[in-house]
């Protein structure tokens, strides 16, 4: 750590593990101690985190937490994110975990510094520290008679503090900022074009790279002729290393043109998987399912059940299609590699670059720029490409994907097929639940998220299998969670409709989970479920869900006509415990719903034998402003409940709520997505 060296007048340095959980959690190791927070002699606070900003407003959340703990204004706080040379090791900005584990530790670090300031003041004022409090960047006596500015206390100090095991953080009632909505501290740079994304990063001497792409996944280069590309004015070099072929040029448009004039022959894979036959192939090509839960006696429960329901569901491949296509800048200096990237996991990217080039990790520095959306994609691949080209020509190189490359060569959300069999008794109670999911992708763990049911049932089997993927599958907003919830919650309505029971009543009759019930009851009340107009021609549907420690229910109102479906309104019950920034959380939930609406209604990656067929926005329909529904969010979490994720849980019930509403409108069950092409 050399963060403190770069700022000579640091008065307080707080060191500790970057993460903290109230109880030991093997899934969330606290990490090696590192500098978490510094305060300089002018009382400017700098906090360090390996998290990145990709639109979720994490800088704001951290700044508000620190401002509250330290009793300083947000303007005096700097947040340094995602630079592997400056910040503590981090596993990546995923799983909506930033506020839960890193935010609380930054609060604890800030509280540690605050206590040190109180102690300094106690010495200075010759009083007991218990007689002092902090407010507005000052330590003052409890009666307000005397006080001293932080800056006065900090002058000439050089303290290094460890975050102790037990730190008293502020109680909710003492928060000034947390729990209240706030403007984003980075807002002005976002509306003036000043914010720098990777594509905007220019380093001296930088050149532009473009990669030759195969026509399909798995294609092998047989023959290539780069002579014409080399002759293009402005081309510096054509780099070839096996199947990897890239052009480096003085300008981006030159590199793009030069790649187009490369002639190549490819041997394509002969995989027969296409978007129309993949639902059945996913099961055929799957490994043996892993049981996550296997309890009770399913066979006898089905035997004695009053009614048995059985169906198969499918969700297709989805493109993340974030607005900023992948890009990376790579620079080599004396065997040290620096990369500017748009990756959510700068440390993982650093490690993968180190491995690729056989370097120790400390020879690689990865700096995350502002990130123009991610939703789970943006892999280190583009940085590998930039670094290879930069090394080959010994100059800095930027590689920027065009939109077609982004659609075809970035990762996509894996498709999945689900088989659900359920048994219900005469009282409408679920007595048997047999759930098997086949998720495309090599990593079955990814499909496990959200697979388990949150409803009460004694005889239950939850099994998940990974299945061979013809496309390059990757992460997405609540990967696995959103797709598993679609299948389960659509099946729940299938049962309710089959039994002739109101879907709200059926769910509540099978749901003991207090926090989930809280979200559902709140959403139903805010929506006016009991008084909805069934003669309106509209459809009404609900779904509930859990993800990243949070709970949510959504109720959708849709209009279906002329083979189009429009979502008019979505009402949300949301429990993420203490809400640090209600406006920020609401923004995330609204975005989750709009995104989930795209996956429900229109989005699907069309492909045939490894070729992506709809690699552009003209052929891949995403939600636009005219599609945006009215969204109402009711927060139901308690202020005394630790904060949990807000960035992802909002998407998990959305597709099912819309599908159930479409079923309500049309009378036809929705068993696969997207809905509109199948209307």
């Amino acid at each position, binding site marked *: 750590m050399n963060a403190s060296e770069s700022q000579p007048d640091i008065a307080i340095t707080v060191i500790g593990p970057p993460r903290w959980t109230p109880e030991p959690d093997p899934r969330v190791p606290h990490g090696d101690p590192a500098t978490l927070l510094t305060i300089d002699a002018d009382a400017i606070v700098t906090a360090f985190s390996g998290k990145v900003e990709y639109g979720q407003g994490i800088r704001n959340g951290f700044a508000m937490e620190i401002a509250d703990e330290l009793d300083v204004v947000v303007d005096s706080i700097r947040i340094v994110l995602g630079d592997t040379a400056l910040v503590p090791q981090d596993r990546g900005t995923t799983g909506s975990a930033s506020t839960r584990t890193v935010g609380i530790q930054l609060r604890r670090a800030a509280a540690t510094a605050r206590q040190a300031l109180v102690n300094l003041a106690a010495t200075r004022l010759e009083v007991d520290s218990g007689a002092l409090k902090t407010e507005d960047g000052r330590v003052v006596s409890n009666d307000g008679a005397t006080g001293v500015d932080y800056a006065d206390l900090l002058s000439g100090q050089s303290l290094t503090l460890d975050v102790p095991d037990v730190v008293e953080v502020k109680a909710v009632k003492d928060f000034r900022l947390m729990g209240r909505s706030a403007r984003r501290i980075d807002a002005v740079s976002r509306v003036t074009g000043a914010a720098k*994304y990777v594509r905007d990063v220019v380093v001296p001497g930088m050149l532009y790279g473009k990669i030759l792409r195969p026509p399909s996944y798995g294609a092998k280069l047989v023959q290539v002729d780069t002579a014409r590309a080399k002759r293009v004015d402005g081309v510096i070099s054509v780099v070839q290393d096996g199947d990897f072929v890239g052009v480096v040029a003085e300008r981006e448009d030159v590199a793009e043109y030069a790649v187009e004039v490369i002639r190549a022959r490819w041997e394509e894979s002969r995989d027969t998987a296409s978007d129309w036959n993949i639902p059945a192939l996913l099961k055929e090509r799957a490994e043996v399912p892993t049981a996550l839960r296997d309890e009770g006696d399913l066979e006898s429960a089905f035997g004695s059940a009053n009614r048995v329901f059985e169906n198969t569901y499918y969700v297709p491949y989805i493109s993340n299609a974030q607005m900023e296509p992948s890009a990376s800048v790579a620079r080599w200096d004396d065997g040290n590699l620096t990369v500017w990237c748009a990756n959510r996991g700068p440390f993982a990217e650093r490690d993968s670059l180190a491995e690729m080039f056989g370097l120790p990790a400390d020879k690689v520095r990865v700096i995350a720029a502002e990130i123009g959306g991610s939703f789970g994609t943006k892999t280190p691949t583009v940085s590998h490409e930039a670094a290879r080209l930069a090394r080959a020509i010994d100059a800095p190189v930027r590689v920027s994907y065009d939109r077609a490359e982004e659609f075809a060569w970035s990762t996509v959300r894996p498709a999945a097929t689900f088989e659900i069999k359920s048994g219900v008794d005469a009282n409408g109670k679920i007595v048997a639940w047999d759930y098997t999911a086949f998720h495309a992708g090599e990593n079955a763990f990814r499909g496990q998220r959200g697979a388990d049911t949150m409803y009460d049932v004694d005889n239950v089997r939850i099994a998940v299998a990974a299945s061979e993927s013809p496309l390059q599958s990757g992460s997405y907003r609540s990967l696995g969670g959103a797709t598993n919830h679609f299948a389960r919650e659509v099946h729940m309505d299938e049962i309710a409709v089959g039994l002739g029971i109101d879907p709200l009543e059926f769910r509540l009759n099978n749901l003991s989970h207090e926090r989930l019930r809280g979200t559902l009851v709140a959403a139903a009340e805010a929506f006016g479920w009991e008084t909805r107009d069934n003669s309106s021609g509209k459809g009404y549907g609900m779904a509930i869900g859990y993800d990243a420690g949070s709970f949510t229910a959504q109720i959708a109102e849709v209009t279906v006509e002329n083979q189009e479906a429009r979502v008019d309104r979505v009402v949300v019950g949301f429990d993420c415990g203490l809400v640090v920034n209600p406006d920020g959380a609401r923004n995330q939930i609204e975005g989750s719903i709009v995104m989930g609406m795209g996956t429900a209604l229109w989005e699907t990656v069309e492909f045939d034998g490894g070729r992506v067929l709809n690699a552009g926005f003209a052929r891949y329909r995403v939600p636009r402003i005219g599609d945006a529904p009215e969204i109402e969010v009711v927060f139901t979490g308690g202020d005394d409940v630790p904060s949990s994720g807000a960035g992802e849980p909002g998407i998990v019930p959305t597709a099912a709520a819309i599908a159930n509403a479409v079923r309500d409108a049309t009378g036809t069950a929705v068993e696969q997505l997207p809905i509109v092409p199948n209307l």
Partner: protein
Amino acid sequence: MHLKVNDESHEVTVDAERTLLSVLRHELELTGTKYGCGEGNCGACTVLIDGEATRSCITPVTSASGRDIMTIEGLADGDNLHPVQEAFVEHTAFQCAYCTSGFIMSSAALLDRNPAPDDDQIRSALSGHICRCGAYVRILAAVKSAAGEPGSGDGGAG
């Protein structure tokens, strides 16, 4: 070739077939205007040409020569944000903000020709833009609130 951008004149020597977006970003280093799709389908590259919202990624630079070009960098009056920018801040009408420059430029052009648009007119004017973070509800609210502000009709400039 002569380009007038944000009230400043530039002489650039560029190939005629290059896009305005490429020249703005690479030659003039005005990187606030974004590449999103290169096909005119997402709106991230929107600038104003003689006050009209225009997709710079499909506009040949030659066709913009001699005309009034305004990018996001030229919209504010010094430190005073344009009312649309102010409203986007006030409503946090963005998340990652990669699409924001485009939305703001189209909104400014809309308010310039129609100072009091209704919801449908706003939706129509912004229908060619994509925000994958899904901040649409906020964008709509921001443009509506900016519509009532003095100076909101200054976006067109031309």
